[in-house]
């Protein structure tokens, strides 16, 4: 993969994830404000889960390129972005587990208030992890790019 292709897919990966988090705000708000479970609340939950899973998959696909071509330069100068990237990948994994878990709980137990509350907490914790991931991702993307050797920048 050349640097331009990597940068393009990394950008798509980040934008899709942010869009997914924005969509996830819909069920988080409606589950709190409405007494029952609206049809669109369930739909947007699954759309958000898919929009979180897809960039996660893209991240998996991009990871070997990052590891082979971007990480060595960051490690050479011990750039803080190296460690922020590590936190980002950990939080992304937790985010996906919580959001998909929350979507399944809402689908299978969303008729009851207890089920909706459990789903809300899973989605809310997933959203928190996702927003933190996105914030770290914006920072990392601003400095960690292939084609720009960190050692030359020093």
């Amino acid at each position, binding site marked *: 993969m050349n640097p331009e292709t990597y940068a393009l897919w990394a950008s798509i990966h980040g934008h899709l994830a942010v869009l997914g988090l924005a969509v996830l705000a819909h069920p988080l708000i409606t589950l709190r404000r409405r007494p029952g*479970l609206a*049809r669109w609340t*369930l*739909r947007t939950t*699954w759309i958000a889960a898919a929009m979180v899973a897809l960039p996660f998959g893209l991240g*998996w696909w991009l*990871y*070997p390129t990052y*590891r*082979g071509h971007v*990480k*060595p330069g960051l*490690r050479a100068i011990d750039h803080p972005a190296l*460690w*922020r990237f*590590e*936190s980002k*990948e*950990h*939080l992304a*994994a*937790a985010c*996906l*587990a*919580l959001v*998909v*878990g*929350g979507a*399944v*709980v*809402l*689908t*299978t*137990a*969303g*008729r*009851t208030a*207890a*089920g909706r*509350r*459990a*789903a*809300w*907490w*899973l989605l*809310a*914790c*997933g959203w*928190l*992890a996702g927003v*933190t991931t996105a914030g770290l991702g914006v920072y990392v993307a601003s400095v960690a790019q292939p084609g720009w050797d960190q050692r030359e920048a020093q």
Partner: protein
Amino acid sequence: MSVRDRPVLGLAAAAAGLAGALSYTVQRLVDAAQEGPAPGALIAQEHIPYYWRCGAALLHALVVALVVGTVATPEAAQRWLARAWLVPVVALPCLVALLAVP
């Protein structure tokens, strides 16, 4: 898309989601606590620890879902789902740990 009244599946999914996050966190903390190879060698390693951690976390989540789905009764599942406060009690420390230990 319709909602089914299956509290046992709901509890199994909630347990799986939490187990996935918890498993990943524990694996990462154990990795961080152990003496690892030199930083330069990490890049040259044949396998990618991140993939292994995600794979193991998925496996743990599936096993937990299977066990909970098999063992829990609908009444017990409703009782446990009502304890939704357990979700942030488990998930938030995981998120803090993952942020604190890169």
